[in-house]
């Protein structure tokens, strides 16, 4: 299948090489894919976006976007991509409509010409079209920024943490919009929220400038090598400490109202855990579980540490 983005041995450092932002990254994003970069602050997501959007130069390696070289063909790439940076970057003192008009004009087009692409989102903004962008709520700002990134009908859309700091309901709405756009455009999106990973076609789990794993969310989950069991008791804070004291435990962390306990297959059973914990814990409960992306991410982090 045709690649929308091709990345080969991309390396980027700061502070004269002391800080490695991207550590020889390699991957491809296919045309029409909704591709997720999943990782916390400092993983290297923004550095990668800035190189791909031709704003920064890599120390070494190369990359293409829409078949064009990010160094040689930077001008043409800028015409063909949409970029929504992590920081809100529209003009706060222009109205909703003025911002959108401005970006359309920059790309030598008009709102009318590409209205069908942004219509779905813009109708939600239309009641506020004369309001200044700076006076919009967080969720509305995101929607406007997305419209402005789309108004010139880009081939590839770069969204850098579009949902950070946005409440769970607005996050869900934003992802519903992305799913609808996906049929018409290649989208690469970064997020620190692990639950959003499952909404992507393929994801790269990033940490400390490296890609720990890259695959479909389902295959990443299928590759989880250990056994996982959920536990809770009335003394949760002490339960974490007590379980970590046990031998052959690879990880024990809170997940909502349970702890997820990770160990090699067969190292523990529910019965043996009960025996080990029942003297110090009341209302001890177990629940069999299958791992989620967050479990996978944490297991990978610990094996890379």
């Amino acid at each position: 299948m045709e690649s929308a983005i091709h990345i080969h041995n991309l390396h980027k450092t700061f502070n004269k090489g002391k800080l490695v932002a991207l550590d020889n990254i390699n991957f491809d994003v296919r045309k029409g894919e909704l591709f997720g970069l999943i990782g916390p602050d400092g993983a290297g997501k923004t550095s990668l976006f800035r190189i791909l959007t031709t704003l920064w130069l890599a120390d070494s390696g190369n990359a293409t976007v829409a078949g064009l070289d990010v160094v040689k063909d930077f001008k043409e790439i800028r015409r063909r991509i949409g970029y929504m940076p992590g920081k809100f970057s529209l003009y706060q003192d222009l109205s909703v409509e003025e911002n959108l008009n401005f970006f359309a004009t920059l790309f030598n087009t008009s709102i009318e010409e590409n209205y069908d692409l942004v219509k779905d989102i813009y109708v939600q903004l239309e009641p506020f079209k004369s309001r200044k962008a700076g006076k919009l709520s967080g969720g509305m700002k995101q929607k406007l920024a997305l419209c402005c990134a789309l108004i010139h009908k880009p081939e590839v859309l770069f969204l850098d943490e579009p949902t950070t700091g946005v409440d769970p309901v607005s996050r869900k709405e934003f992802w519903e919009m992305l799913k609808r756009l996906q049929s018409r455009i290649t989208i690469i999106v970064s997020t620190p929220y692990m639950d959003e990973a499952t909404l992507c076609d393929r994801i790269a789990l990033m940490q400390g400038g490296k890609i720990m794993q890259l695959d479909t969310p389902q295959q990443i989950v299928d590759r989880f090598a250990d056994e996982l069991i959920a536990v809770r008791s009335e003394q949760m804070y002490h339960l974490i400490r007590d379980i970590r004291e046990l031998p052959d435990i690879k990880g024990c962390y809170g997940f909502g109202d349970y702890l997820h306990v990770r160990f090699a297959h067969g190292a523990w059973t529910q019965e043996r855990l009960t025996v080990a914990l029942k003297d110090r814990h009341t209302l001890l409960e177990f629940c069999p579980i299958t791992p989620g992306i967050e479990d996978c991410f944490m297991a990978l982090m610990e094996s890379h540490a």
Partner: protein
Amino acid sequence: MHKEGQIVISASELTKTFGDFTAVDHISFEVKKGEIFGFLGANGAGKTTAMKMLIGILSPTSGNASVAGYDIYTQTEHVKQNIGYMSQRFSLYEDIPVIENIRFFGGIYGVGAKELKAKSAALLDKLELTSSAKTLVRDLPLGWKQKLAFSISILHDPQVVFLDEPTGGVDPITRRKFWELIYEAADRGVTVFVTTHYMDEAEYCDRISIMVDGRIAAMDKPAILKEQFQSPTIDAIFTQLARGAKRTAD
């Protein structure tokens, strides 16, 4: 256990209006000593405004509240001396060393010079940062930064600590280790008032409230709320309540 029932935060019909807009609409609640209280709500629901009133930097329009035993209208300076505050956005000065951050914030919170010296040393020792005392905060790994920021916010032994989205953008392991620090502080009797957009973190709280359109739409222990709403997760309850919201602006 320190949960003997002493009320540390008490709000009654607390209200704030800006012109004809009611940001916080008659909210009432109490938080007990050593409790972890999760304060949830969509963007624009009124969380920040409510929190600003409780920490003594915004005067209410009507209603009453006291924090750590002090009135939030008339004793705001006492309120500020008896609380800690940490947010994701601003918690430490990145371009000064660890030890100077500790001294600076300790000084701001009124910890005496002699006591501050002892406390700084104890804190560095506890966080295993003694050898990094002169490291600039910006050069610390994220997990250490978070630990340091939280520890500094409770350096002056406040009765209550307010945490405003303390874990945004943090990796999943650091995020959980951070919550273990919160548990530890609560276990020592510090009352914790925390906002978050991570719904799994809501489950770590003793009690939570969910704000919608300036009011508290639901408030109880997470397990009881899930039973009440017949819902397996807090996320689902939050979505159900917030989708009914009338206002969308911040």
